[in-house]
């Protein structure tokens, strides 16, 4: 019996500790974290552009960190719905001519600037020339500076030009993170852990009273 109780207490403590750790690691799931090279032809045909698909469910968003630090490179990032992308892909439309880009919020972090709303803006395209970094949040649409959650299938597209003459490559880095089940798992694990601990304590107390033959009064 004592061994069982010790195991129960141990399991509940593990669950309580594991909850916040899982919450931290699964809060955002990394879909993409890599450097890309795409051709300058991406500027004239969406089929040659870098395209990364993802699906959003209700109350879910993606965070995109888009950066480039290469001379002569101009890289553009847009987000399309899957339907619009498929249509443009079939017609080999130049990415710059596609209508129906989705709006997102990009943030510019300025330490000490208390006008936090002023550091975030909605837009449907982010361009980097030679060097730059953008922190983008996307959930399907925007309303002013706020995200509007619209579940669906979307595609991140990056295309651009290289004015270097011989080199026709576009170099850029992308990190795409999607909301994970971290918060839900954290709450669940802590609840189960605490519940198990309380139940074990009650069980031990009742067993002790039974064993010693003592009532409460």
């Amino acid at each position, binding site marked *: 019996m004592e061994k069982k109780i010790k195991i129960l207490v141990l399991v509940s403590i593990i669950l309580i500790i594991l909850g916040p750790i899982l919450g931290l690691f699964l809060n955002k799931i990394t879909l993409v974290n890599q450097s890309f090279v795409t051709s300058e032809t991406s500027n004239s045909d969406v089929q040659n552009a870098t395209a990364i698909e993802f699906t959003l469910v209700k109350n879910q*968003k993606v*965070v995109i960190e888009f950066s480039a630090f290469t001379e002569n490179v101009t890289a553009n990032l847009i987000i399309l719905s899957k339907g619009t992308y498929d249509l443009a892909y079939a017609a080999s439309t130049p990415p710059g001519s596609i209508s129906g880009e989705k709006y997102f*919020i990009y*943030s510019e*972090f*300025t*330490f*000490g*600037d*208390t006008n*936090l*709303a002023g*550091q*975030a803006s909605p837009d449907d395209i982010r361009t980097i020339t030679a060097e730059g970094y953008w*922190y*983008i*949040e996307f*959930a399907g649409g925007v309303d002013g*500076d*706020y*995200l509007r959650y619209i579940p669906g299938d979307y595609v991140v597209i990056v295309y651009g030009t290289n004015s270097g003459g011989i080199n026709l490559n576009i170099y850029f880095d992308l990190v795409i993170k999607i909301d994970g089940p971290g918060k839900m798992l954290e709450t669940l694990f802590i609840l189960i852990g605490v519940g198990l601990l309380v139940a074990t304590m009650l069980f031990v107390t009742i067993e002790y009273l039974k064993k010693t033959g003592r009532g*409460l*009064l």
Partner: protein
Amino acid sequence: MEKKQVKASIFDKLPLLDKNRAAKFVIYGLLIAIIFGTMMMISRSVADNSSQWADLADKENQISYWNGEYGYNDYIERQQEILRIENWMNYQDVIFMNIARIGINIGLIFCITGFLSFAVNDKIDENTRKISLIIAGLILFLIMFTTFFSGIYVAVG
């Protein structure tokens, strides 16, 4: 003649508690009242300090945003979460204060029963019995006064 056995209820037993059992009633009653009283104080302290906690959490949120740990939308979401928790920290007072009040009243009823048992016990000296009766009356007055003339109110912004 047939004898009919009647089982005594707890109410029949109450005034007949022996000295030891009455003392146990008083001690357990006090213990229950102290535990629930502590719960009451913690609950009130959490509610009173909710705005200080919210200020701290807001500042942490702002610094995390400035550091680029998350974007504006995450900042707004966290801000709403802080507001929700602050309101709950205020409102939990109503729930826990009422639970604590019930607990304290139960504890005090144990004490009254114990003191009344002292008062009706003819093996105890007269003065102790009188004092026990007065204490039981005072505790009863306290329960009735707090139940009827004090309410629990919090403002959730």
